[in-house]
């Protein structure tokens, strides 16, 4: 793939990040712009212009731009999306409000649940009913659809969502309703549940289609505007978007189903984690990204990040499972917790020290920023322990005030507890690592695996600072710190493959399946997926298709994903599914139950093109050979207390260099910490590889 010159753009809440890869010259350039909140396209165009100029390329030489955004997720968190009307089946007006009927926190009497995206007065019902076999029980009352549409238009809605009971089995009524509404209200955007997510479970489907509606007008406007601007600037190549599942898609997906972009940024991070795993020959990787307020962990097995078919958006209680809106969207499965550089340490009612999830954010920020922050944070502790240098934070752009930190820790943590300042600081560091280790361990336990076989790939500003402590708690043997911890995540946009997902629900006991029906819907799904990929610029010969089906024991509410062979399927389908299910069940749960029948629920297909194969072995950095060692400073390690420790400049290390721990390695966006029981080496890709030696 010579001549591959692409820009990846990640629109975040505060910053828009850019990364340009020029395969021909084997260089990477990076850039940052403040996000232009009212119209993110402005910052994107400026940034693209800048980075292209910096790299010496013209816009028309680019082979394409790949784009991800937090706009979708933020719109739901901030609740500033469109005014949505919902039309649903008579008798089911309150699906969105009733939800799962659970409390996500057992002991909190004052629990807050997320408000439905569509309030009751804008949820209208019409007569129609499909039964559990997909047959029409009550025909759609078309007049009621038009009346409901009119009432919603009169209420001033921006967009209408449609979600009928059992429509996942037969979309006929939803499609007819779309047709009628389009005819009578030609300028009104309409989105139907079976187009966005043709899957069983009305609450999740209704949440997904209304969330899609909620972000749709804004995303449509912004994407078409952006495309126009870039074309005007001379862009010839395609503008693609990153989807939450880690695939690259054409723009029309973002315009019809923008909800699929909800986790595009983190997905890119996981993909780049997988990439670093691959180039360092690590089979099992925990991609660990720790920033200012959160840490994210993703498991990667044999180069494939874990996937999930659902995601919870806009949690009312941050990081609390069950407190958000459940969406059925293919995503890369990540755990996120409130552990970051800004996480605040405090003493709780039981007189125990706690860290996070509350964060000092960037304003006022940690105490050491000297901007008025009074609560000691993780970054403050890292400074006291010698992990961070007061003079080389963000490459020296900000000077950190260590004396302010000492008095804050003394006052808020040490005074009441009898701890020394050092004990309090090392406590903060250990507790935040412990919090991250606990969720990671539990997550791995849920998958029934052993944490010790994983390699940690650390990114984000605080990732490399905490990787060593986290790895020790999980008893991992190896840490990989890619060069440019802040950029490595955006790289994911440029190494992801074009991919698209299709789903179809066909709920049947496997002994009652019709293989002809399965073959028919799979062939439709396959054609539509391949067409979409070709439109996204994939090479037709390189497209691979894989099929999976969610199955369960009849009566058990828990589905598992079972891989299917290519097909087409014949009369042995029942046998094939039964065997594949039992085998997978045994693999996951260590048991086979043969006295219960098995059923298939949701049939999935993923088509993907080939991923660009990058062989970058440097990032345009000037290596300052021979000037690696910057000096010594006292650094705290739990086993030794403060000890003299060599400090290196990341930019002075070259491939093949080896260091015996303890060591601090500083780069602009982060600092690598390695304890006395480690050895470090630099590989051909300039990754820093840290091996921990347990006795």
């Amino acid at each position, binding site marked *: 793939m010579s001549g591959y010159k692409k820009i990846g753009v990640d629109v975040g809440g505060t910053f828009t990040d850019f990364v340009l890869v020029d395969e021909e010259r084997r260089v990477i350039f990076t850039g940052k712009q403040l996000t232009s909140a009212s119209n993110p396209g402005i910052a994107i165009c400026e940034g693209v212009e800048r980075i292209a100029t910096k790299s010496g390329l013209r816009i028309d030489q680019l082979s394409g731009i790949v784009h991800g955004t937090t706009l979708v997720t933020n719109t739901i968190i901030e609740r500033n999306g469109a005014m949505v009307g919902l039309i649903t089946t008579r008798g089911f007006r309150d699906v969105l409000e*009733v939800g799962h*009927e659970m409390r996500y926190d057992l002991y909190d009497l004052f629990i807050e649940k997320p408000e439905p995206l569509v309030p009751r007065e804008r949820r209208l019902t019409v007569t129609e009913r499909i039964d*559990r076999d997909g047959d029409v029980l009550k025909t759609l009352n078309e007049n009621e659809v038009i009346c409901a549409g009119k009432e919603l238009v009169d209420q001033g809605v921006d967009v209408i969502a449609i979600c009928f009971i059992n429509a996942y089995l037969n979309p006929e009524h939803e499609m007819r309703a779309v047709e009628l509404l389009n005819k009578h209200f030609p300028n009104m955007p309409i989105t139907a549940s079976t187009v966005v997510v043709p899957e069983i479970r009305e609450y999740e489907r209704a949440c997904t289609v209304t969330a899609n509606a909620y972000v749709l007008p804004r995303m449509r406007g912004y994407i078409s505007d952006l495309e126009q601007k870039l074309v005007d600037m001379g862009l010839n190549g395609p503008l693609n978007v990153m989807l939450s599942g880690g695939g690259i898609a054409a723009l029309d997906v973002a315009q019809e189903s923008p909800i699929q972009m909800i986790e595009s940024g983190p997905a890119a991070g996981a993909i780049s984690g997988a990439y670093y795993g691959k180039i360092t020959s690590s089979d099992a990787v925990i991609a660990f990204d720790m920033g200012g307020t959160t840490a994210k962990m993703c498991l990667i097995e044999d180069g494939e990040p874990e996937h999930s078919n659902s995601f919870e958006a806009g949690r009312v209680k941050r990081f609390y499972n069950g407190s958000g809106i459940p969406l059925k969207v293919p995503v890369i499965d990540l755990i996120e917790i409130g552990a970051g550089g800004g996480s605040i340490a405090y003493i709780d009612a039981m007189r125990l020290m706690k860290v996070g999830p509350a964060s000092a954010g960037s304003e006022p920020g940690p105490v050491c920023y000297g901007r008025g922050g009074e609560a000691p944070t993780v970054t403050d502790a890292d400074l006291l322990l010698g992990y961070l240098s007061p003079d080389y934070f963000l490459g020296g752009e900000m000077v950190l005030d260590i004396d302010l930190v000492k008095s804050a820790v003394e006052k808020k943590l040490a005074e009441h507890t009898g701890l020394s300042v050092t004990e309090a600081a090392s406590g903060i560091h250990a507790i935040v690592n412990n919090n991250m280790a606990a969720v990671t361990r539990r997550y791995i336990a849920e998958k029934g695996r052993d944490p010790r076989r994983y390699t940690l790939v650390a990114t984000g500003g605080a990732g490399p600072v905490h990787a060593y402590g986290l790895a020790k708690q999980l008893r991992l043997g190896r840490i990989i710190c890619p060069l440019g911890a802040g950029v490595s995540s955006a790289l994911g946009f440029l190494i992801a493959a074009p991919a698209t997902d299709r789903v179809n629900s066909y709920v049947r006991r496997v002994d009652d399946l019709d293989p002809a029906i399965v073959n028919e819907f799979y062939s439709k799904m396959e054609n539509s997926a391949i067409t979409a990929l070709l439109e996204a610029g994939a090479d037709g010969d390189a497209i691979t298709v894989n099929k999976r089906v969610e199955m369960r024991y009849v009566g058990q509410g828990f589905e598992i994903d079972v891989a299917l062979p290519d097909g087409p399927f014949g009369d042995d389908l029942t046998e094939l599914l039964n065997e594949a299910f039992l085998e997978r069940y045994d693999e996951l749960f260590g048991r086979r139950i043969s006295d219960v029948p098995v059923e298939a629920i949701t049939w999935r297909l993923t088509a993907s093109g080939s991923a660009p194969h990058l062989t970058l072995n440097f990032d345009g950095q000037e290596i300052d050979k021979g000037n690696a060692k910057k000096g010594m400073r006292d650094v705290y390690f739990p086993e030794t207390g403060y000890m003299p420790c060599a400090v290196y400049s990341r930019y002075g290390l070259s491939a093949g260099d080896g260091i015996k721990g303890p060591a601090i390695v500083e780069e602009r966006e982060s600092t690598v910490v390695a304890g006395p029981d480690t050895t470090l080496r630099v590989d051909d890709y300039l990754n820093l590889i840290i091996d921990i030696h347990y006795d």
Partner: protein
Amino acid sequence: MKSTEHSKSFDPVSLEIMWSRLISIADESAAALLRTAFSTLVRESNDFTTVLLDEDCNCLAENSGGIPSFVGVVPSTVKAMFEYIPIKEWRPGDCLITNDPWFGSGHLPDITMASPIFYREKLVGFSGSIAHLPDIGGVGWASDGRELYEEGLRIMPVKFLEEGKENKIVGQFIRSNVRVSDQVIGDIYAQVAAQRICQNGLIQFLEDTGLPDLTELSTALRSRAEAAMREAISALPDGSWMSSLDADGVDERETHIDCRVTIKGSDLDIDFEGTSPQVASGINSVMKYTYAYATYPIKCALDPDSPRNEGSFQPITVQAPEGSILNPKFPAPVAARQLTGHLLYGVIYRCLAQIAPERVCAESGSTPTLRSVYGGIDRKGNVFNQALFAAGGLGANSRMDGYACTAFPSNTGVGSVEALESVSPLLVWHKELVTDSGGPGKFRGGLGQDIEIEVRSDHPIRFSLMSDRHKYPPRGIAGGGDGSCTVVQLSDGTRPNQKARTMLPAGARLRLHFPGGGGFGCPAERDRAAIENDIRKGYISLEAGKKHYNYEP
């Protein structure tokens, strides 16, 4: 942390790290149980628990999810096991089992298991678990058994595993007395696997920390938890407060609960003297279940944030007269003990409301939960047996309206209508909030819901109903009004027995009303904008607005 350091006793950092690590061990154990259990009650309704005990059977950590039923149960179950198998006969690899309602969590489907944990050849603790099995024989899930013997197989404490090997006789007994034996035995092994994870986790923990055993740590943790609860209780005035509650009872014989909460310094006593005698229906709540549902609301109201361990409950005592529905004697039937146990928070909060109304909430529509089970043969000739889970409205509290259709104190998840229809011949025609079902108040009770169901079968259907509140609605608190009453009615107007099994005609269609919750505070204090919002959304009718709130448009 090397062994030299622990003698420094426990500072706020190491204690925090060790405690969260122990909770994490209980959570990993729970993850293993969830992952390998078949029972939908375990998977979808969290009807299980995993715990870690020290060598004196003090509970140090339990899994973070879970439901209130198991608070404080396992430690006394393990002690009861000692009566059958003396501690000196417990070997590494052993796993004991019981489901006796009086030893365990109050009804037969809940299996309690425990394994000893040895470290350096010394007993250092126990891993324990409780899970609701898919079946335990007997009449199935119904409230009309007249004696325990009808309710299924009863297993007194016995070794299920002996030094890692299955006790074949015990296994065979269980297999031959339950309906879906592969699932049941499989789920028992899920508990075994969970306990093994807990054992390994604890041994690794001791190795990492250098602690020889849990004794000192356990004392430190329990005293912190106890201190937090004592502090919360001490903040309330001393005194004694009374309250009572009437429930529909069984076959026209109403039941009654009397409650007296006494606070003296940092001790809190709950006494149910005066409560109705036990009945020949499965609504009797054994003492341990009574204890669990009496202490849970106290923890929510007074000390919701600190993690639970034995210490949290040390300052609380609970008593109920022997032979009453809250402390029945063997062989009382107990299968539907939730119909009584869930009610307790209502009377306890009415006592606390007299001194700290801002801490409590009104009674909820799902206090107790309404459960119905449908069985028979569908039109394709397949046998079905399907339970319907749904909730009424949450009682309001001092800060906000109750949420619609949210259960308290139980916390059972609800599947979707589409999922329900996909596995059974039940057709749901209607499932919507009911206007005016929430009790009026400064803060309104959460709305209940109506569900209309048609059973699409050509044969008569077995129908088991476990419900209450048909006569006595969920009550408001601190001046708030009552929620609506339960209704279960066939399309011809007949109402099946609220606590029994009945046969329904083929193709029956019925309506179930899950009540709204009680209101909080005087309706006259309700914000006008909130009233208007309620009317606009149809949460209340204009007439109700006029009647309860003197609202004039």
